[in-house]
């Protein structure tokens, strides 16, 4: 292994927490959940709020997410990040935080997320589940919304439509991805959907935006999570085995799906290549994958773009259940956004599970010998791609 990159394994994730319930709902406000996640993740690391000098948050009820969060926590950080790239915000913030820590701009950073779309929707207090209908004076309001595309699933359906046209990908192949998710969620007592399903079950579920059916689509639940990062030097003295950050990469290609250059290829080609190069690793070195599964097609595109199979061959690649328990490419071992939880942005949960797999804490769903984990966030409508490769002491 050639460790030439100056950022490789200089930092680590040392604390994690997430809150997910099989009911899909959580008690408490978004702020109270954020604070709880920060407390739990710091406790996990063996740190306290007094150690924190950097905060990252991508959503708030006001105008400045990390600023308002720091005020609520009563701290005066020397580093903040409110970057918003949708569901990949947390991978991007981890990349930024790792660079800042390596450069000496911060020492202990918390990245946090909480959202309660399911319980807020039930209470009638709006939130993520409320419907669009007012046209903002944006390019999307002017040139996309008038055509009534369901968001975000319509955009992903267009990508699936094109992938099927160019490469002959089938609904059965996409369905296998959802089937594989349940082989993991059935082992996860906190998962929302734990019943095993078949390809036929997916094909029999109601069409939403063709060719995507209900079981091709992620959940809508409450959820919260946090990760704590620090320098590799400090990480070695903390409570848990560090999950070293071996490589990161980010690439955004568009905001609106009508501006996506090629609907069968995402910015993960770039983010993945950057992360592999920094890590000095390739796809065959990855033991466990955490890939953003907003929809089954998202996984298919990411597998191709991150080099796990050639472009266009994602359909045949997933058809034999490689992503499920016992498969050659264990992926989304919580059950993912399709079966575990999906509060609007899933990226934090990818990082939390990647770390737990590297620590060997996952019980029934543990991937034996997991030394390298890849967490990949996808934000917007396949818009913002961010890859984080993590490793154990043995692979740093």
């Amino acid at each position, binding site marked *: 292994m050639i460790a030439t990159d100056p950022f490789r394994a200089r930092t680590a994730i040392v604390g994690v927490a997430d809150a997910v319930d099989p009911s899909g709902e959580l008690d408490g406000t978004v702020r109270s959940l954020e604070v709880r996640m920060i407390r739990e993740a710091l406790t996990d690391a063996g740190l306290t709020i007094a150690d924190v000098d950097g905060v990252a948050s991508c959503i708030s009820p006001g105008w400045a997410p990390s600023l308002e969060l720091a005020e609520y926590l009563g701290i005066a950080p020397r580093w903040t990040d409110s970057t918003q790239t949708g569901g990949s915000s947390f991978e991007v913030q981890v990349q930024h935080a790792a660079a800042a820590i390596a450069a000496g701009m911060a020492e202990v950073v918390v990245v946090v997320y909480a959202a309660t779309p399911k319980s807020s929707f039930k209470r009638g207090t709006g939130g993520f589940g409320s419907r*669009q209908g007012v046209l903002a004076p944006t390019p999307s309001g002017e040139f996309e919304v008038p055509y009534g595309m369901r968001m975000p699933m319509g955009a992903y359906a267009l990508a699936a*439509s094109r992938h099927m046209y160019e490469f002959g990908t089938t609904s059965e192949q996409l369905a296998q991805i959802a089937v594989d998710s349940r082989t993991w969620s059935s082992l996860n007592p906190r998962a929302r959907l734990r019943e095993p399903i078949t390809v036929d079950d997916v094909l029999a579920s109601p069409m939403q935006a063709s060719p995507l059916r209900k079981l091709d689509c992620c959940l809508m639940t409450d959820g919260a999570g946090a990760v704590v990062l620090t320098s590799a030097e400090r990480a070695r003295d903390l409570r848990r085995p560090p999950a070293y950050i071996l490589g990161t990469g980010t690439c955004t290609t568009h905001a609106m799906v009508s501006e996506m250059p090629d609907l069968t290829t995402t910015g993960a080609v770039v983010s993945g290549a950057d992360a592999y190069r920094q890590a000095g690793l390739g796809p065959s070195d990855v033991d466990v994958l955490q890939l953003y599964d907003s929809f089954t097609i998202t996984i298919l595109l990411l597998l191709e773009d991150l080099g796990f199979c050639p472009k266009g061959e994602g359909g045949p690649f997933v058809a034999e259940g490689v992503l499920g328990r016992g498969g050659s490419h264990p992926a989304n071992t919580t059950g993912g956004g399709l079966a575990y939880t999906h509060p609007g942005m899933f990226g934090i949960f990818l990082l939390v599970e990647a770390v737990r797999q590297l620590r060997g804490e996952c019980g029934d769903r543990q991937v034996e010998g997991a030394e390298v984990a890849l967490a990949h966030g996808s934000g917007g409508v396949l818009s913002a791609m961010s890859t984080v490769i993590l490793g154990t002491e043995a692979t740093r």
Partner: protein
Amino acid sequence: MTVVPRPDGTRERVSPPISTEAEPFWDATRERTLLVQWCPACDRGIHFPRAACPTCLGDVLEHRPSTGEGVVYACSTMASPGNPTMSGREPYVVALVDLDEGIRMLTNIVGEDAAAVAPGDPVRVAWEPLEDARHLPVFVRIKA
């Protein structure tokens, strides 16, 4: 050019907002003309209309009439409406269409044979009236 009436029993679509850069585009729709913003320096079309060319950042731009013809790049049938004004039209087809001028637009495919549309199909612009005398460009399939 073809006018496509609003389906019986459905609401008027919400009128799209008009950005400064897209005023010529929307004005032309009153005459049911499809314009494409153009960068003469790059000799290429631009959509959505911008204050500067996204290739060269030049701001000397013009608008050119489109042939109104193109090819479906990708399409999806919505089983339920994407916003309340589309209620009653479902199922309906949302598509990305690549125009002859080299730009891509999100749009609807309409007409009796819309449900069978597939990527690669040739299509031609049609116009749905909006309440403010503008028209919304939609597309119909061209019979082989």
